[in-house]
Protein backbone atom coordinates (compact mmCIF):
# COMPACT_ATOMS: atom_id res chain seq x y z
CA UNK A 1 0.00 0.00 0.00
CA UNK A 2 1.37 3.39 -0.96
CA UNK A 3 0.40 5.08 2.28
CA UNK A 4 2.19 2.61 4.48
CA UNK A 5 5.21 1.92 2.31
CA UNK A 6 6.20 4.27 -0.50
CA UNK A 7 4.77 7.32 1.26
CA UNK A 8 7.16 7.07 4.17
CA UNK A 9 10.20 7.19 1.94
CA UNK A 10 8.73 9.96 -0.17
CA UNK A 11 8.09 12.00 2.93
CA UNK A 12 11.57 11.51 4.28
CA UNK A 13 13.45 12.13 1.06
CA UNK A 14 11.31 14.63 -0.77
CA UNK A 15 8.74 16.33 1.43
CA UNK A 16 10.84 16.84 4.53
CA UNK A 17 13.69 18.09 2.39
CA UNK A 18 11.53 20.80 0.83
CA UNK A 19 11.58 19.42 -2.69
CA UNK A 20 7.97 18.33 -2.82
CA UNK A 21 4.73 19.65 -1.45
CA UNK A 22 2.23 16.89 -0.75
CA UNK A 23 -1.54 17.25 -1.04
CA UNK A 24 -3.97 14.54 -0.04
CA UNK A 25 -7.21 14.44 -2.01
CA UNK A 26 -10.17 12.41 -0.80
CA UNK A 27 -11.43 9.94 -3.35
CA UNK A 28 -13.75 7.55 -1.50
CA UNK A 29 -14.44 4.80 -3.97
CA UNK A 30 -18.02 3.73 -4.32
CA UNK A 31 -17.19 0.10 -3.83
CA UNK A 32 -15.76 1.02 -0.44
CA UNK A 33 -19.02 2.66 0.61
CA UNK A 34 -19.57 4.41 3.89
CA UNK A 35 -16.35 3.34 5.61
CA UNK A 36 -14.41 5.30 2.99
CA UNK A 37 -16.71 8.31 3.13
CA UNK A 38 -16.90 8.48 6.92
CA UNK A 39 -13.14 8.04 7.21
CA UNK A 40 -12.54 10.96 4.92
CA UNK A 41 -14.98 13.09 6.85
CA UNK A 42 -13.46 12.09 10.17
CA UNK A 43 -10.00 13.05 8.97
CA UNK A 44 -11.20 16.60 8.40
CA UNK A 45 -13.00 16.60 11.74
CA UNK A 46 -9.69 15.73 13.35
CA UNK A 47 -8.11 18.47 11.29
CA UNK A 48 -10.26 21.00 13.07
CA UNK A 49 -8.24 20.12 16.14
CA UNK A 50 -4.90 20.12 14.34
CA UNK A 51 -4.79 16.35 14.18
CA UNK A 52 -5.44 15.79 10.49
CA UNK A 53 -2.24 13.97 9.65
CA UNK A 54 -2.33 11.93 12.82
CA UNK A 55 -5.83 10.81 11.91
CA UNK A 56 -4.79 10.26 8.30
CA UNK A 57 -2.01 7.93 9.38
CA UNK A 58 -4.18 6.19 11.97
CA UNK A 59 -6.90 5.52 9.41
CA UNK A 60 -4.44 4.00 6.98
CA UNK A 61 -3.19 1.89 9.86
CA UNK A 62 -6.71 0.52 10.22
CA UNK A 63 -7.40 0.00 6.53
CA UNK A 64 -7.94 -3.72 6.93
CA UNK A 65 -10.54 -3.30 9.66
CA UNK A 66 -12.26 -0.57 7.66
CA UNK A 67 -12.29 -2.72 4.55
CA UNK A 68 -14.08 -5.49 6.40
CA UNK A 69 -17.03 -3.30 7.39
CA UNK A 70 -20.32 -3.44 5.56
CA UNK A 71 -19.99 -0.77 2.86
CA UNK A 72 -23.64 0.11 3.24
CA UNK A 73 -23.70 0.42 7.01
CA UNK A 74 -23.02 4.04 7.86
CA UNK A 75 -23.60 3.60 11.59
CA UNK A 76 -21.00 0.86 11.71
CA UNK A 77 -18.55 3.07 9.89
CA UNK A 78 -19.07 5.88 12.37
CA UNK A 79 -18.74 3.48 15.26
CA UNK A 80 -15.48 2.19 13.85
CA UNK A 81 -13.95 5.55 13.09
CA UNK A 82 -14.72 7.40 16.30
CA UNK A 83 -12.39 5.35 18.51
CA UNK A 84 -9.60 5.89 16.02
CA UNK A 85 -9.86 9.65 16.22
CA UNK A 86 -10.86 10.33 19.79
CA UNK A 87 -7.44 9.62 21.30
CA UNK A 88 -5.88 12.00 18.79
CA UNK A 89 -7.97 15.07 19.54
CA UNK A 90 -8.38 17.21 22.61
CA UNK A 91 -12.13 17.57 22.43
CA UNK A 92 -13.60 14.17 21.79
CA UNK A 93 -17.17 15.40 21.99
CA UNK A 94 -16.60 17.99 19.31
CA UNK A 95 -14.94 15.40 17.13
CA UNK A 96 -17.84 13.02 17.62
CA UNK A 97 -20.39 15.69 16.81
CA UNK A 98 -18.46 16.64 13.70
CA UNK A 99 -18.42 13.05 12.46
CA UNK A 100 -21.99 12.23 13.40
CA UNK A 101 -23.41 15.34 11.76
CA UNK A 102 -21.50 14.59 8.55
CA UNK A 103 -20.12 18.08 8.64
CA UNK A 104 -17.54 17.50 5.93
CA UNK A 105 -19.73 15.47 3.58
CA UNK A 106 -20.21 18.39 1.17
CA UNK A 107 -16.46 18.94 1.12
CA UNK A 108 -15.69 15.30 0.45
CA UNK A 109 -18.40 15.24 -2.21
CA UNK A 110 -16.82 18.22 -3.93
CA UNK A 111 -13.38 16.67 -3.89
CA UNK A 112 -14.85 13.48 -5.28
CA UNK A 113 -16.58 15.36 -8.04
CA UNK A 114 -13.44 17.19 -9.04
CA UNK A 115 -11.47 13.99 -9.18
CA UNK A 116 -14.14 12.46 -11.38
CA UNK A 117 -14.04 15.50 -13.63
CA UNK A 118 -10.41 14.69 -14.21
CA UNK A 119 -11.28 11.07 -14.90
CA UNK A 120 -9.51 9.98 -11.78
CA UNK A 121 -11.70 7.21 -10.50
CA UNK A 122 -9.39 4.61 -9.02
CA UNK A 123 -7.08 4.60 -6.06
CA UNK A 124 -4.37 5.26 -5.48
CA UNK A 125 -3.78 7.85 -8.15
CA UNK A 126 -1.21 10.61 -8.25
CA UNK A 127 -0.55 13.85 -10.04
CA UNK A 128 2.86 15.43 -10.21
CA UNK A 129 2.45 19.14 -10.81
CA UNK A 130 5.30 21.40 -11.85
CA UNK A 131 5.86 24.86 -13.23
CA UNK A 132 9.07 25.25 -15.19
CA UNK A 133 11.31 28.33 -14.93
CA UNK A 134 9.72 29.56 -18.15
CA UNK A 135 6.27 29.29 -16.58
CA UNK A 136 5.16 26.21 -18.43
CA UNK A 137 2.82 24.07 -16.38
CA UNK A 138 2.98 20.33 -16.51
CA UNK A 139 0.97 17.59 -14.88
CA UNK A 140 2.05 14.00 -14.90
CA UNK A 141 -0.61 11.55 -13.77
CA UNK A 142 0.22 8.14 -12.40
CA UNK A 143 -2.47 5.59 -11.70
CA UNK A 144 -2.04 2.74 -9.29
CA UNK A 145 0.51 1.63 -6.79
CA UNK A 146 4.13 2.39 -7.56
CA UNK A 147 7.05 1.13 -5.56
CA UNK A 148 9.36 3.70 -4.09
CA UNK A 149 12.26 3.24 -6.47
CA UNK A 150 10.10 3.99 -9.47
CA UNK A 151 8.26 6.74 -7.66
CA UNK A 152 11.56 8.44 -6.82
CA UNK A 153 12.61 8.37 -10.46
CA UNK A 154 9.37 10.07 -11.40
CA UNK A 155 9.84 12.72 -8.77
CA UNK A 156 13.42 13.33 -9.85
CA UNK A 157 12.23 13.74 -13.40
CA UNK A 158 9.64 16.30 -12.34
CA UNK A 159 12.14 18.13 -10.17
CA UNK A 160 14.43 18.41 -13.18
CA UNK A 161 11.54 19.71 -15.21
CA UNK A 162 10.79 22.35 -12.60
CA UNK A 163 14.42 23.36 -12.45
CA UNK A 164 14.73 23.55 -16.19
CA UNK A 165 17.56 21.05 -16.19
CA UNK A 166 17.81 18.07 -18.51
CA UNK A 167 15.19 15.52 -17.61
CA UNK A 168 16.81 12.23 -16.60
CA UNK A 169 16.45 9.32 -18.91
CA UNK A 170 13.90 7.07 -17.23
CA UNK A 171 15.94 4.05 -18.21
CA UNK A 172 18.99 5.31 -16.34
CA UNK A 173 19.66 4.08 -12.86
CA UNK A 174 20.40 7.02 -10.53
CA UNK A 175 23.94 7.00 -9.21
CA UNK A 176 25.09 8.62 -5.98
CA UNK A 177 26.49 12.07 -6.59
CA UNK A 178 27.65 14.27 -3.79
CA UNK A 179 27.04 17.39 -5.83
CA UNK A 180 23.46 16.40 -6.37
CA UNK A 181 22.63 16.60 -2.70
CA UNK A 182 21.94 20.30 -2.87
CA UNK A 183 19.96 20.44 -6.04
CA UNK A 184 17.30 17.84 -5.68
CA UNK A 185 19.30 14.79 -6.48
CA UNK A 186 19.65 13.72 -2.89
CA UNK A 187 16.46 11.79 -3.02
CA UNK A 188 17.65 9.86 -6.01
CA UNK A 189 20.59 8.77 -3.93
CA UNK A 190 18.21 7.08 -1.57
CA UNK A 191 15.93 5.66 -4.17
CA UNK A 192 17.62 2.34 -4.34
CA UNK A 193 17.36 1.40 -0.70
CA UNK A 194 14.06 2.79 0.33
CA UNK A 195 11.72 0.62 -1.55
CA UNK A 196 8.65 -0.15 0.43
Amino acid sequence: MYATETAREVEKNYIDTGLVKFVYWDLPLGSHGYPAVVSAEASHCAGEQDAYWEMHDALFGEWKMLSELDPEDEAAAVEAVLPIGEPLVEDGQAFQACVETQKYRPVVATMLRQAMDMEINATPAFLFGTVSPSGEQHVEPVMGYVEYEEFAKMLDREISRAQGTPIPDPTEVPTPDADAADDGGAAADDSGDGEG
Partner: protein
Amino acid sequence: MRRVLTTGMLAILLLAPVACGGADPEAAPDAADLTQEAAPDAAEADASLVEAGDADPAAATADPALADGTAGAEGADPATAEAPTLTPAEVELITNFRPPSKGSEDALVTLYEFSDYI
Protein backbone atom coordinates in the same frame (compact mmCIF):
# COMPACT_ATOMS: atom_id res chain seq x y z
CA MET B 1 -0.93 4.38 -17.10
CA ARG B 2 0.34 7.86 -17.68
CA ARG B 3 -0.89 10.70 -19.74
CA VAL B 4 -0.49 14.40 -19.89
CA LEU B 5 -3.41 16.43 -18.67
CA THR B 6 -4.36 19.89 -19.73
CA THR B 7 -3.08 22.91 -17.92
CA GLY B 8 -6.67 23.56 -16.91
CA MET B 9 -6.60 20.43 -14.79
CA LEU B 10 -3.36 21.54 -13.25
CA ALA B 11 -4.89 24.89 -12.50
CA ILE B 12 -7.79 23.30 -10.70
CA LEU B 13 -5.50 21.40 -8.44
CA LEU B 14 -2.57 23.69 -8.00
CA LEU B 15 -4.20 27.03 -7.77
CA ALA B 16 -7.79 26.65 -6.85
CA PRO B 17 -9.47 25.54 -3.66
CA VAL B 18 -11.88 22.67 -3.62
CA ALA B 19 -14.77 25.00 -4.04
CA CYS B 20 -13.91 25.74 -7.64
CA GLY B 21 -15.60 22.61 -8.84
CA GLY B 22 -17.35 24.58 -11.51
CA ALA B 23 -14.13 25.15 -13.40
CA ASP B 24 -13.95 23.46 -16.75
CA PRO B 25 -11.22 20.85 -16.54
CA GLU B 26 -10.87 20.88 -20.28
CA ALA B 27 -10.09 24.55 -20.40
CA ALA B 28 -6.56 25.76 -20.73
CA PRO B 29 -6.67 29.11 -18.99
CA ASP B 30 -3.83 31.57 -19.10
CA ALA B 31 -2.12 32.99 -16.06
CA ALA B 32 -4.82 35.57 -15.50
CA ASP B 33 -7.46 32.88 -15.54
CA LEU B 34 -5.53 30.89 -13.02
CA THR B 35 -5.38 33.81 -10.66
CA GLN B 36 -9.10 34.21 -10.90
CA GLU B 37 -9.65 30.54 -10.30
CA ALA B 38 -7.80 30.78 -7.06
CA ALA B 39 -10.37 33.00 -5.43
CA PRO B 40 -13.87 31.81 -6.15
CA ASP B 41 -16.68 33.50 -4.34
CA ALA B 42 -19.47 31.84 -2.46
CA ALA B 43 -21.76 31.96 -5.47
CA GLU B 44 -19.27 29.97 -7.47
CA ALA B 45 -19.02 27.42 -4.74
CA ASP B 46 -22.75 27.06 -4.58
CA ALA B 47 -23.05 26.58 -8.31
CA SER B 48 -20.33 24.00 -8.35
CA LEU B 49 -22.06 21.99 -5.70
CA VAL B 50 -25.31 21.88 -7.55
CA GLU B 51 -23.38 20.65 -10.50
CA ALA B 52 -21.72 18.02 -8.37
CA GLY B 53 -25.07 16.88 -7.14
CA ASP B 54 -26.39 16.51 -10.63
CA ALA B 55 -23.53 14.41 -11.79
CA ASP B 56 -22.97 12.43 -8.68
CA PRO B 57 -26.03 11.99 -6.54
CA ALA B 58 -24.25 9.87 -4.04
CA ALA B 59 -21.55 12.39 -3.46
CA ALA B 60 -24.08 15.03 -2.62
CA THR B 61 -26.47 12.91 -0.65
CA ALA B 62 -24.05 10.37 0.78
CA ASP B 63 -26.29 7.60 -0.30
CA PRO B 64 -24.60 4.21 -0.11
CA ALA B 65 -24.97 4.12 -3.85
CA LEU B 66 -21.88 6.23 -3.79
CA ALA B 67 -20.55 3.58 -6.08
CA ASP B 68 -22.67 4.98 -8.82
CA GLY B 69 -20.66 8.08 -8.96
CA THR B 70 -17.35 7.14 -7.49
CA ALA B 71 -16.48 3.96 -9.20
CA GLY B 72 -16.62 5.63 -12.53
CA ALA B 73 -18.48 8.25 -14.43
CA GLU B 74 -20.42 5.57 -16.21
CA GLY B 75 -22.51 4.88 -13.15
CA ALA B 76 -23.81 8.36 -12.50
CA ASP B 77 -27.44 8.87 -13.26
CA PRO B 78 -28.40 12.52 -13.16
CA ALA B 79 -32.02 11.60 -13.70
CA THR B 80 -32.24 10.08 -10.27
CA ALA B 81 -30.12 12.65 -8.52
CA GLU B 82 -31.46 14.49 -5.55
CA ALA B 83 -30.52 18.12 -5.67
CA PRO B 84 -28.36 18.87 -2.67
CA THR B 85 -29.67 21.41 -0.26
CA LEU B 86 -26.77 23.35 1.11
CA THR B 87 -26.92 25.64 4.06
CA PRO B 88 -24.97 28.88 4.01
CA ALA B 89 -22.61 27.33 6.54
CA GLU B 90 -21.90 24.45 4.20
CA VAL B 91 -21.25 26.79 1.33
CA GLU B 92 -18.85 28.76 3.48
CA LEU B 93 -17.14 25.58 4.64
CA ILE B 94 -16.54 24.47 1.08
CA THR B 95 -15.48 27.88 -0.10
CA ASN B 96 -12.84 28.19 2.57
CA PHE B 97 -11.66 24.62 2.50
CA ARG B 98 -8.14 23.84 1.38
CA PRO B 99 -7.04 20.26 0.78
CA PRO B 100 -4.65 19.08 3.47
CA SER B 101 -1.05 19.55 2.52
CA LYS B 102 2.40 19.34 3.97
CA GLY B 103 5.82 20.39 2.85
CA SER B 104 7.26 23.64 1.62
CA GLU B 105 5.07 26.10 -0.23
CA ASP B 106 8.15 26.79 -2.34
CA ALA B 107 8.63 23.16 -3.30
CA LEU B 108 9.54 22.41 -6.91
CA VAL B 109 6.90 19.74 -7.32
CA THR B 110 3.40 19.41 -5.96
CA LEU B 111 2.39 15.79 -5.49
CA TYR B 112 -1.28 14.96 -5.22
CA GLU B 113 -2.44 11.64 -3.89
CA PHE B 114 -6.03 10.63 -4.63
CA SER B 115 -7.08 7.89 -2.31
CA ASP B 116 -9.36 6.63 0.38
CA TYR B 117 -8.51 4.79 3.53
CA ILE B 118 -9.41 1.33 2.34
